């Protein structure tokens, strides 16, 4: 079976690199074809990478608190770029401060994310979900 391709990166003006390196390591070990665009990545960087590599999913990380601003319109831009129904996950510390996760999840689902993860969620959980959603 062909390897599935996943774009990973850290969105916006965010430089938190450690989690990104760990995710890269874990996804690669987990049998995915990983396209890592690294930190400080714009929406366009994610979309271009996904288009170029014909990716199956985009895993956005946001740690620094600006996630909500940085992700506005991402789903729409994906649609415009022809990335119809591409899987969109987001994880990290995606909002400012310690907030009730249920509310946060709802807000990000409205933004078009398929799955939303609470602070410090293990990437193993993400891999499990990817396998489910991509029917691997």
């Amino acid at each position, binding site marked *: 079976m062909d390897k599935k391709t996943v774009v990973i990166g850290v969105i916006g*003006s965010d430089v938190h690199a450690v989690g990104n390196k760990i995710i890269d390591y874990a996804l690669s070990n987990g049998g995915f074809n990983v396209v890592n665009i690294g930190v400080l990545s714009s929406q366009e960087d994610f979309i271009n990478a996904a288009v170029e590599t014909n990716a199956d999913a985009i895993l956005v990380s946001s740690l620094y608190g*600006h996630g909500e601003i940085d992700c506005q319109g991402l789903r729409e831009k994906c649609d415009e770029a022809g990335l119809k129904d591409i899987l969109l996950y987001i994880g990290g510390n995606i909002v*400012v401060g310690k907030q009730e996760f249920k509310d946060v999840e709802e807000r990000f689902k409205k933004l078009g994310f398929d799955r939303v993860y609470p602070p410090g969620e293990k990437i193993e959980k993400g891999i499990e979900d990817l396998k489910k959603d991509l029917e691997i």
Partner: protein
Amino acid sequence: MDLKNKKLTMAEFMKTREEVLNTWHTGAQVADLDKMIEYAKTVPSEKNFALKLQKAKESRTVLTQPRAGVALVEQQIKLLNYLDEKGEADLLPTTIDSYTRQNRYENCELGIKESLRLERSMLNGFPIVNHGILGGRKLQESLNKPIQARHGTPDARLMSEILHASGWTSNEGGAISYNIPYSKDVPLDKTIRDWQYVDRLAAIYEENGVPTNREPFGPLTGTLVPPSMSNAVAIIEALLAAEQGVKHITVGYGQCGNQIQDISAIKALEKQTDQYLKQFGHNDCVVTTVFHQWMGGFPKDESKAYGAIANASVTAALAKVTKVIVKTPHEAFGIPTMEANASGLKCTKMVLQLMADQRAFMSNKLKEQIDVIKEETTCILDAVIEVGKGDLAKGVVEAFKRGILDIPFAPSRHTANKILPARDSYGAVRYLDIGNVPLSKELKKYNKYMLEKRGINQNRAVDFQMTVDDIFAVSEGQLVGKPSI
């Protein structure tokens, strides 16, 4: 213009200054430097950051300082006064937001507007450039304690102009420490130049009667940075600052977690900074120290977070640093509420006061670890100077190219990204993969030996999985990562 570790001439400085002030409209407010200095002189001396640190050093008191920044001026005033009064903070910060750090002032405008509209801070810090000296001064004047800017900005020139002109008497950062951990592709020669400007600016205030403190950012990526590497960087940035005329320098270190290693690192840092400053002919600098409570991933459980915070505070008290940067029980989740921030401060203060009249005493182990760190640091610094052919600034650029200086887990492509750290059996951070860091044979052997000992103890290979386990260990309530079975 050739990159060189040399004090900028007034002409050079003023020429650059014009460009800098033009990058955002608030720059115009600070155009008249003399007036800005006049204003800064009106800040009462008990609110001077540099002087408060100097006094604390003399009386061997350990001061507390939180991190804190929100989008709006009024909110920031409220927040800082709360941390002063309820949190008993000795020194106040203002954390600058991440858009400002990338000089994206337009994004800040949006963030400010959104924050006003939604009535909560939509920025992760205080956008000082957008607020200009009106906001900056208002904030400073509304506080009773010294204030410092804390950020992570590769190009902090405009920000620095505005903050000093607002009467803020300390500024964190440096050419390496606010580049490699905080950006992806900013060349080092650019940040060295930009921070020469920032240092020179601080020095101009100092020379004109406003004691002004500069603080290299010690912890770098906050993630298993071997002490000799972060100490080398701190000393380099202290030397670069001193060359520009900075007199009040606070060198920093982020807790690694092994108490003996942490105390050793602080002792070595203090000693070697003094020594190198003298060696470079800077004889009249006041060097103080800052200890950062654990900078890596935090446990989610708040009681455990308190444990991590207080444990770090014991180390700080034993090492008798000048100040501690304080974490909060919300660390694993997000920017803390002001209550959680005050909680971290009070927990720290309690420990510091319980330990105020106590200190670390010399043991053979402590002496051994101080020596190891000093020797490692010397190996690195000697090599940097050598590859710079005697010039430190050139040396830094070259050293990063060659991997002599190398910072683990950094986002920047300007670090070789070759070294890998891991903890030994006692939790001390060692070089697992030494990359191109030019340690002596014995030191290389020592690092290897200590990690092999752990390999045997834990019955596992000495490899990257060790590092990965160590990255998660503290947040999972351990220091030394355990192999998962």
